[in-house]
């Protein structure tokens, strides 16, 4: 079981990420026992069955998560946030920054509070940015070394998820305005 960084600690990743083969329809894909991170299409096709499955899991080991591709609009999950323990966003390449906006929208516009996980091509030199836009979990190679990059910057100008006020509203000036 690979490890991941979550809330600044290294923890075991006890989730299975389900991917959809081209020939299998979202309704038919077999789900393993345990926590599953599902493609959006599977979630949308089997939402009620999946929630039932979670209710009936005896040890609470059947938690549900959904992962989004960068071309999927997070608005489609806005009504489902209570049913999901993890939302993940897949990065097909480190340079594909759509996931940063998706994370911002999930956290700030839709108010998602639980685990937001970066999956796919996740590299340590982007952790600072990923963390700022709201990711709190990272599937990353060599998480021990990568942890250090979370602290690359101690201050930032912009408001983001980790700091809702811009620098100019955090100095004494804001009070005077």
């Amino acid at each position: 079981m690979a490890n991941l960084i979550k809330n600044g600690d290294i923890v075991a990743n006890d989730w299975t990420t389900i991917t959809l083969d081209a020939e299998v329809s979202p309704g038919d894909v077999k789900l393993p026992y345990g926590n599953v991170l599902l493609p959006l299409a599977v979630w949308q096709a089997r939402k009620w069955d999946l929630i039932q499955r979670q209710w009936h899991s005896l040890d609470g080991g059947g938690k549900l998560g959904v992962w989004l591709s960068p071309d999927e609009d997070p608005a489609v999950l806005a009504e489902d946030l209570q049913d999901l323990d993890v939302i993940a966003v897949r990065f097909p390449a480190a340079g594909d920054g759509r996931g940063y906006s998706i994370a911002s929208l999930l956290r700030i516009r839709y108010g998602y509070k639980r685990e937001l996980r970066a999956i796919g091509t996740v590299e340590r030199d982007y952790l600072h940015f990923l963390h700022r836009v709201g990711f709190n979990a990272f599937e990353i190679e060599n998480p021990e070394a990568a942890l250090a990059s979370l602290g690359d910057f101690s201050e930032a100008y912009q408001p983001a998820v980790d700091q809702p006020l811009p620098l100019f509203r955090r100095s004494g000036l804001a009070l005077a305005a």
Partner: protein
Amino acid sequence: MYAYTETDRRIVAERVIQYRDQTRRHLASELSADQFRPLRLQNGLYVEKHNPMLRIAIPYGQLSAPQLRLLAHVARSYDRGVGHFTTRHNFQLNWVRLGQVPDILAELAQVDMHAIQSSGSCIRVVTTDPLAGVSPVEVADPRPWAEIFRQWSTLHPEFAALPRKFKVAFSGGPDDAASVRTHDLGFEMVRDAAGDVGFRVWVGGGLGRTPILAQVVREFLPWTDLLSYAEAILRVYNLAGRRDNLYKSRIKILVQSLGIKAFAQRAEAEWQHLKDGPLTLIAAEVARIADQFAAPDYETLTDLDARFEFMRRFDREFAAWVKTNTHAHRQPGYVAVTLSLKAPGQAPGDATAEQLDAVAELAERYGFGELRTAQTQNLILPDVRKRDLYNLWQETRKEQLATASVGLLTDIVACPGGDLCSLANARSLPLAAAIQQRFGDRGELVDIGALRLNISGCVNACGHHHIGAIGILGVDKNGEERFQITLGGATGPGAAIGDVIGPSFPAAEVPETVARIVDHYRACRRPKEGFIDTVRRIGTKSFAAAAYAQEISIIEDEREVANG
């Protein structure tokens, strides 16, 4: 000039530490070349033909004398004693060592300089009018807004991996000296009916492979909403900009494909969520920044200085320099002065460490220790007393900085080209030198008058050939270095993309071809009609006939290929 706070310094210092570790891991093979590439690019480091090139940021073109001295020092210590000023407020070192870049950055940080976001798929160095704050025609000084924008765009987490580069400019007024019309996003300072300052917002301009002029996305944006609106535009672009094709990934392509109306609606819809949120600017912060750009301690002078007027009549060479290289100032008795980096034989925009040191001293003795970098690859002393001009002129002559050609044909803007750049098809610099040599006759040059000539070594258009009245583009034809000519390009309110006149020329024929074009203008112009106006009146076809000095019909078949 904006003075860094302790927080500004800490952010730059932490970027140096971060980049030092990234370099170390790359050299230790922990970061592959592909992984390291975007990291070094976002810190201004290209790997060029012979060597890495470091692009240092000069946000909105403003430099202090100590900063200039430090640039001289790094050019001397880490390079070959020469640096290059670009068309977008950057300073490039062409011969640095990859392993030494962290040390260069640490030195730059000592004077609050850096290379953050001077390249890569991110929000680039913000640009503005080099005469901001002294221009008599500006609506308001754009520098405070550019500084506010610099801070917001520095290490913005959501926009750290955009589809492509994103260039932003602020123009102080309707003369559009910063060329908002050729930027991804441009802010033109305007006032509303009540006299409150705001911005006309332009989007979707850019040169490069597919030159397109920007369109107005919002007629009036109140100043309070500068950052929230920018965030909305960037978010729409980040999510919807194409990432499948490098050549179609700039925001200009998105704006073209949606149409400006639909794009504006999407931006507006996004903005409704951000408007009046924490990014809304507050008066106290704007005042804190603006105070640092307050006018310096000018002397109260009359606009007419007897010594200056006398020397101007007495010394014709001085008068010629005054005419081209000095610019009207809002303060009586003062002018702004362009220190030309276009001396014959000098690559346009290049300056030696000795010249940089000399300029720093001149800035202190003849101004308030401040300088600007101009889009024309020159330096500007913004505040010089007319009384001092004659002495300043004599001193700049000694340093080869007094070439009296600003705005004339030989004030050539050129990219570094095939001598240094790995993208280039052709060498821009020898061509620039050959054209300057061809137009060495002062009388002829002055008679031709205002004329922008721009040379790019390839379609990426770093020499901005599309907006040159005469634009020259290096193309590769079966391994042969050739040049294509465009006519009619312009910046400012009359911005236009030049038209290709026909098939390309071998390098050796370009200077004479330019001469034939210019002679055609001199033959056809009406009294006081400038080059660009004659081109517009009689059309490029007429000029093409002169340029090829042959039947136009031969030219027609190849025209389709041009700009392809």
